[in-house]
C-alpha cells in the first residue's frame, strides 16, 4: 500500500515547515502566528512518523504522541496569555506590543 518513497514525505514536511516559518515571521496578528507555529509542529510530526516508518521502529510515533500533548498545553497557555494581553492592551497585533522596547 505504501509505495510512496519516504523522501516524498520528507519533502512535503520541509515545504509545510517552510510555509509555517514564513507565516510566523510575516503575520502580525498573534493568533495567526500561533497557527503558523502549529503548522511547523505538524510538519515535524510528519517527519517523525515518516522516519519511524522507514526504520520500522515505533519510537518516532511515541515522540509524536508527546509532541501532541505538549502542543495542546502550549495552545491552552498561549491563548490564555493572548486573552490577558488583550485585556491590558486591547490588541494582539505584535507590532503594537512594544512595551519592552528599550
Amino acid at each position, binding site marked *: 500500500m*505504501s509505495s510512496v518513497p519516504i523522501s516524498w514525505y520528507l519533502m512535503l514536511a520541509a515545504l509545510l515547515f517552510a510555509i509555517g516559518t514564513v507565516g510566523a515571521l510575516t503575520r502580525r496578528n498573534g493568533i495567526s502566528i500561533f497557527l503558523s507555529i502549529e503548522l511547523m509542529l505538524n510538519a515535524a510530526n510528519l517527519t517523525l512518523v515518516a522516519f519511524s516508518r522507514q526504520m520500522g521502529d515505533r*519510537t518516532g510515533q511515541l515522540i509524536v504522541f508527546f509532541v501532541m500533548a505538549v502542543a495542546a498545553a502550549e495552545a491552552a497557555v498561549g491563548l490564555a496569555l493572548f486573552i490577558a494581553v488583550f485585556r491590558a492592551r486591547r490588541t494582539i497585533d505584535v507590532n503594537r506590543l512594544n512595551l519592552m522596547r528599550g
Partner: protein
Amino acid sequence: MGTFIFLIFAALAVASSLVVVMHRSPVYATMSLVVTLFSVAVLFVLLGAPFLGALQILIYAGAIVVLFLFVIMLLNLQKEGEAAGRRRGQLWVALPGALIFIGMVGLVFWRAGAPDLQPLTEDLVSLKGLATALFTDYLLPFEIVGLLLLVAVIGATVAARRAPDAADGAGLLPREDFVAEETERKEARP
C-alpha cells in the same frame, strides 16, 4: 493507489497551509488549518500510524482548533490591515523560509541511499505495541506529560481570569484610558 492518495492529500495540505499563512481573516485561517491537519492525519494513516491519525483529528482538529476559534470570537478579532512597506518586508522574510526549505530538501538527497522500505509489520501498526511501549519504557515521560497538562490547565486559568476591578465582568470592553491613549496616538500620526 498509495501514490494517488499521497499526491491528493499532499497537494491539499500545501494549498490549505498556504491559505493559513496568507488569509487575512483569522477565522478563515483557522478553518483552513483544519484541512491541513486532516490531510496530515491521512498521511499518518498511510505511513502505518492509524492511532496517531485518529489522535491528530481528535486533539488538533477537535480540541486545539476549537480553542483557537473560541478565542478569536471572544476577542472579536478583525482582519489585519495592510501596513506600509509590507511587500518589501515579506520579500526579506521569505528568504529564511526558502533557505530552510532548500536546506531540508538538500539534506533529504544528501542522506539518500536509505534502506528500502520494509513491509509494515503488525507490531508497528497495532495499538497494542504502542501502548506496551508507552506504559513500560516511556512510563516516566507519560507521567511527566500528565503533570505538564495539569500545570498548563492551572496556568491558563490563572492567566486568563478576569481582573477583579473589571467593570463589565469579563474585562473585554474598551477601557477609557486606553481609548484616550489610542485617539492621542491616531491624532499624532500624520
